[in-house]
Every structure is written in structure tokens, then in C-alpha cells.
């Protein structure tokens, strides 16, 4: 570790999420990805009480198919002084807000739109894996040479390899993974926007669901969804004059760890940590001045349940190997120590690459969530796990 002095991020506490907007979440949107992106951005601007003319920055995922200028042209957004893309799939989710906040704090832009939209279910599905990937000999494709010929073709298969080792090392069981799914689905059951609205599951349902890749059951895996989500980032000062109560960006960070791979970091000393989330966590605590005890809720990226346990440990909500007890005690549920994925998560609400979770963080701060955590001051939100990732602490404006 470097011997640098305590980190300070100039955007921490001085920027805010001022607007959120989304399309409906479905399995077949019936419209173009560009239209989904445009609808989401328009809704977020309306929510904030801003117009297209106010926007001068845009950020999305490098995985997104909707270029900034396409969305800008469609909506009548004019001059842009900041535009950026972030790589590594769902790991980009909170990093869009991170980059937007940096742009605002440095004066590069005033109002930055973050967005992500796709027809991930009706169009190209990630869950079908990389079998069709042509092996153009570059470093990114070559990294699949160690997995695809062997039959590890999907994100589920890559994550399952971690999960097996985690079970072995910590004494957690498949049921502990299941408790994450049960909590997500309990929250989704009372969220009308969720795909699994009014469809809770039991631990028995989880255990009885078919194998996808052992040790992962079907109900350990997030759904695939169509939809779009947008967020508006501006200065806290400006946000205070807008339509909604600001969700203060108390901290935002990106992280990649040593010996980082894309979901296949199997060569580190052990496979029961997510060092990249540790890099994010240290920055979040250090730059916000907060500690896990100051957090009343969490949106933890849940494409696959096992990594929720890892994250509880990396973020410091419990010690290594103790996440199993943490979930057994019901702490992820409403009324628990850390109500988590209160919108239903990506297992229950929708898989919009983590961006819908950021919107839920904003609703919790605004006290407009369907499953509202009472007395919430701060909430942690994380992005894709097993990949270079990102995270946020959002808080109430005081």
C-alpha cells in the first residue's frame, strides 16, 4: 500500500444526484435501446426539474450501445463539455456517478446525465456467454482462452468457481446464498416496478430450483431484463434549488485489485476475497469520514448471490467468513441491521446493470422507497462484482 496521506475527494459531499428516471422493466420492451435510453434520460430530467438545455455532460458504460451524441441529438441536448464511457460491464454502474461528480466538482460540466439502457433479455443476452466470440487475437479475447475452450462460457460459470471455494473455506452453505435471494424477492414482492412483484420465494424454493452451474441454483442468478435507467448529477448547491431533495454523494470510488481478471481472478492467493471491492471500500470510508456503523441500508450488486456475502465482508459490515451468520440472522431484510436491495435487487426488480440500484439508493435518501428504511441517513451502493468495480455512499442533505 502507498504511504499517501488521508484521501480527500473534492466531489465528496459537494455533489448530488438530483434526478432519477427509468423506463418500465420488462422481458421485451418492444422498442429500440436508443429509445429506452432517451426515455430514461427524459424522465430523469423531468424528475430533477431540468431541461435538455441544462445538460452539458454525459456518461455511460462502454458496454452501452447508445452513444452520448445519439441520445443528445434525440433529446435536443446541445453543447457537451464532458462525455465519458466506463468499461468492465456492471462494474461501471457507480463509476458513471463517480465520473460525473468529478466533472462537476472540477468545473468541467454543470449537469451530467448518467444512463444505461438495453434490451438485455429480448436482444443480446449476456447469460448465453461468449461462445460466438470470434477469437481476434487481442488481449481481451485472449483472456477467454483459459475458460471458453474448457466450457466456462457464462458469468454464472465464472462466479460459481469462486462460490465453491468460498463454501469450502468459510463453511457457508448453498442456503446462505439462498438467503440473499429470499431477501431480494421479499423486497421485490412489495415493489410494483419489480418483475417479481408479489412473487416471493422461500428457501425451499431456492434449494429446489435447478442447477445452473453447481454450486449455483437458478435462483442464485439474476434475471435478464429490458429497460433503461438515468441519473442526473450536479453540484449539491444547484441540486438544492431543483425539484427533489438532493441525494448527497458522500463518497464515490472505483477499484481494481492486483491480479485482476474479468470474473476469473482465480490466480490470487485466495478466491474468498474481492480485493477490488476492498479498494472501493477503503476509499468510501476514508473520503466520507463514515464507517459501516453509520450506514442504515445497502444496495449490493447481486448478479449472483455469493458475491453479496463477499461484499458484506469487504465493506466491513462483518468479518471475513461471518457473512453467513449475518444473513442467517435476517439482517438483509427490512428491520434487520442492514436492509439490502430494498427494491428487490437485480434478482427481483430488474437487471439494469446496477443502475436501477443507484436509483433505489436515491429513493431511500428521499424517503420515497416502497420499502423505506426508517431513519436512513446513509446508504451504500455497489457495482458489478468480480470485475473492476465501483461504489457510492449516498446521504441525506444536512
Amino acid at each position: 500500500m502507498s504511504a499517501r496521506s488521508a484521501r480527500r475527494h473534492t466531489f465528496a459531499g459537494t455533489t448530488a444526484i438530483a434526478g432519477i428516471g427509468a423506463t418500465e422493466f420488462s422481458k421485451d420492451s418492444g422498442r429500440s435501446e436508443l429509445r429506452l435510453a432517451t426515455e430514461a434520460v427524459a424522465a430523469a430530467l423531468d424528475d430533477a426539474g431540468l431541461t435538455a438545455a441544462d445538460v452539458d455532460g454525459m456518461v455511460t458504460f462502454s458496454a452501452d450501445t447508445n452513444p452520448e451524441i445519439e441520445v443528445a441529438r434525440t433529446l435536443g441536448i446541445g453543447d457537451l463539455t464532458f462525455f465519458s464511457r466506463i468499461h468492465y460491464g456492471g462494474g461501471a454502474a457507480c463509476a458513471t456517478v463517480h465520473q460525473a461528480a468529478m466533472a462537476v466538482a472540477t468545473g468541467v460540466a454543470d449537469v451530467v446525465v448518467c444512463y444505461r439502457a438495453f434490451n438485455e433479455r429480448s436482444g443480446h443476452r449476456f447469460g448465453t456467454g461468449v461462445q460466438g466470440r470470434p477469437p481476434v487475437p487481442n488481449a481481451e479475447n485472449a483472456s477467454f482462452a483459459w475458460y471458453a475452450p474448457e466450457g466456462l462460457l457464462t458469468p454464472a460459470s465464472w462466479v460459481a468457481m469462486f462460490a465453491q471455494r468460498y463454501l469450502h473455506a468459510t463453511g457457508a452453505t448453498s442456503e446462505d446464498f439462498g438467503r440473499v435471494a429470499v431477501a431480494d424477492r421479499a423486497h421485490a414482492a412489495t415493489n410494483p416496478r419489480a418483475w417479481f412483484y408479489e412473487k416471493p420465494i422461500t428457501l425451499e424454493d431456492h434449494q429446489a430450483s435447478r442447477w445452473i452451474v453447481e454450486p449455483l441454483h437458478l435462483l442464485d442468478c439474476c434475471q435478464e431484463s429490458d429497460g433503461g435507467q438515468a441519473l442526473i448529477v450536479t453540484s449539491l448547491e444547484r441540486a438544492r434549488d431543483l425539484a427533489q431533495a438532493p441525494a448527497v454523494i458522500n463518497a464515490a470510488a472505483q477499484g481494481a485489485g492486483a491480479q485482476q481478471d474479468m470474473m476469473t481472478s482465480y490466480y490470487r492467493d485466495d478466491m474468498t476475497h474481492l480485493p477490488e471491492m476492498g479498494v472501493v471500500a477503503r476509499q468510501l470510508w476514508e473520503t466520507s469520514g463514515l464507517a459501516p456503523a453509520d450506514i442504515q441500508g445497502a444496495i449490493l450488486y447481486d448478479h449472483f448471490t455469493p458475491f453479496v456475502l463477499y461484499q458484506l465482508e469487504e465493506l466491513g459490515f462483518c468479518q471475513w467468513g461471518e457473512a453467513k451468520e449475518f444473513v442467517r440472522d435476517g439482517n438483509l431484510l427490512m428491520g434487520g441491521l442492514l436492509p439490502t436491495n430494498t427494491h428487490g435487487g437485480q434478482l427481483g426488480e430488474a437487471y439494469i446493470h446496477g443502475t436501477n440500484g443507484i436509483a433505489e439508493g436515491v429513493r431511500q435518501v428521499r424517503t420515497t422507497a416502497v420499502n423505506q428504511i426508517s431513519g436512513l441517513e446513509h446508504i451504500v451502493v455497489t457495482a458489478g462484482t468480480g470485475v473492476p468495480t465501483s461504489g457510492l455512499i449516498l446521504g441525506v442533505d444536512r
Partner: protein
Amino acid sequence: MSAAEPATEVDDEKFLARLKAFEGRTVGAPTEGPDAVNQAMIRHWVEAMGDENPVYVDEQAARANGFPGIIAPPTMLQAWIMRGYKATAELAEARAEGRRAVGASPADDLMHVLDEGGFTSVVATNCEQEYRRSVVLGDRLSVSSSIESVSTEKQTGLGIGHFITTVLAFTDAAGEPVATMRFRILKFRPGTGKSTAALSGPPTAGSEEPRPLRPRPALTHDNAFFFDGARQQKLLVQRCASCGILRHPPRPACAVCRSFEWDTLEASGRGTVYSYVVVHHPQVAAFDYPLPVAVVELEEGTRLVADLVGIEPDAVEIGMPVVVTFVAVDDELTLPMFGPAPA
């Protein structure tokens, strides 16, 4: 199945016998080329080829290089005896009408038989030439051709077909040998290639369909050694040539000492299961399911992902000893896999 294709094994044998009957057949008298070896044709050739060697156009340069005078480019050999446009057109017309052309050679007749058998596509595969002496201006070359061999039916990347090797013997006006050319072509059935069947491997058990191949590794300068090694039944681990540290997956440089120099260590093939999964879904036709795949920790210390073979998925355990075995999953890809270590 079209009527032109052999319908049974007996028919296959008869067809092959017809082809084999062409082996060793030759045209009677050598056929003389239409023109003497001349500067005009040579100049057109070298200009088209972009060949600036002066020995083909400059008498002095040719002599300076030890030739008796201007010589013809060796690759031009066949050009001196080509039968010309009219004869070629007549042959094509005769082929189209299903009759034997005037002046058809045994090679032409063989082509006709293969066309009838449905092997209508043709591609030149290789050509070897052997010169007794250089071809010089004024030479009058004659050629006699014979069919050296006709192969049995082969599955190739382009399609199912027969390789035909023809030998052309070139002689000069005095009847002295000048050169021989061995020319191999593949006559194949269009649409039966591995490329059109999405690179097919052995059929899936109980299925008529050729099984799609496993995904290919993207090969780079950094990783190709591993797959080359596997084909030679070697499990290779990249090793820093400066500090000796082993690394997998391979990288172009050492993260410890920053050396770009590396060699490989042949691993013993013994290791233990560090973690594993059993893949059930989605099922891709190239693989058999349930598919156990492990992160294997080699006794040398590095880890790699490999399929497990000879172990029931339910019997896999973290920590179990395993040994490498090399499995040729198809013609071009061999992978190290791991099975139970002998007790």
C-alpha cells in the same frame, strides 16, 4: 441426397475403383507448346508479377549470373504449353454437354468422372517443380502428363473430396528432359466443408449432426506456446527467464522483475483441485453435460482452469489429487484435462 452421389458402400468402392484406374495413365505423344520461349511473353509475365530480376530481360545480366542467356522465369513453366483459349473453351463446352472433347487428356477424363460423382469444385493445393536446366529463349517445350495418384475420399476443410496428383514432364526439341512439375488438386463436393458446417468435429453421441467445435482460444504471441505444448502432450508453464518466477495465465512481462525474457517449464502434470464447478446450463453442443471444470493448483504452484475427465461430477472434492491427460478435442485443439491421480 442427389442422384449423382454414390448411394452405398458398394457404389463407393466401384467409384473409387474407377478413379484408381486413372493412376499411371499418360497421354500418348508429348504435346508441343504453341510458341517457342520468347521475350514478349516473358516480359508480359514479369511485368504482371512485378518481378524485376534482370536475368529475365537483360542478356548481359543473365550471362553475368552464369546463365547462357536470357532465361524464362521458373514459375512460367506451365505457360509455354497451355493449350490456349479456344481449346480450353471447347473442353469446357464439352464438359457442360457431358461429352468427351477432341484432344481431352486422361486428366480431363478423370475430371469428368469426378464431376459425375458430385465432386464438382476444384482447388489447387500445391505444386512442386524440378528443373534439369533453365529454360532459355528459343526453347520449344513439349509436355506429357500422367496421373500419378488419386487419393481415397478425404474430409478436408473445404469439403469431402479426392486429391489428384498429376506429373507433367517437360522436354525440349531434342526430346531431352528439361523439367518436371508435380501438381496436386483437390476435387471436392461443394458444401461439405468444415467451414460450411461451422467447423464440425466428431458427431455427438446418438446424433447424425456433426458436433460444433469448442470455442477457439484467441492465440497471441503471449499464449500460443501453451496450446502448441498441449498438442505435444506437454503442460507448459511460462517462467521468467530473469527471476525464475512461474506465471499463468501467460503475460508478456514479469510483474516481479519486469523482464520481458521468458521460457517455459514442463510441469509434472500433478496437482490438486483448488475449486471446481459442474456446468449444467446453458448447454452448448460442443460439450457433454454435466461438465465438471476445475481450477487445478499444480505442484509447481501455478493454477489453471481445466476440464475434469474420468471423475463423476458428484465425486469431485476440493483438495483431491489429479493428474493431467491430454485430450485432442478436435483436429486442431488439444487441451490438458485432469483425471484422478493413481492411489
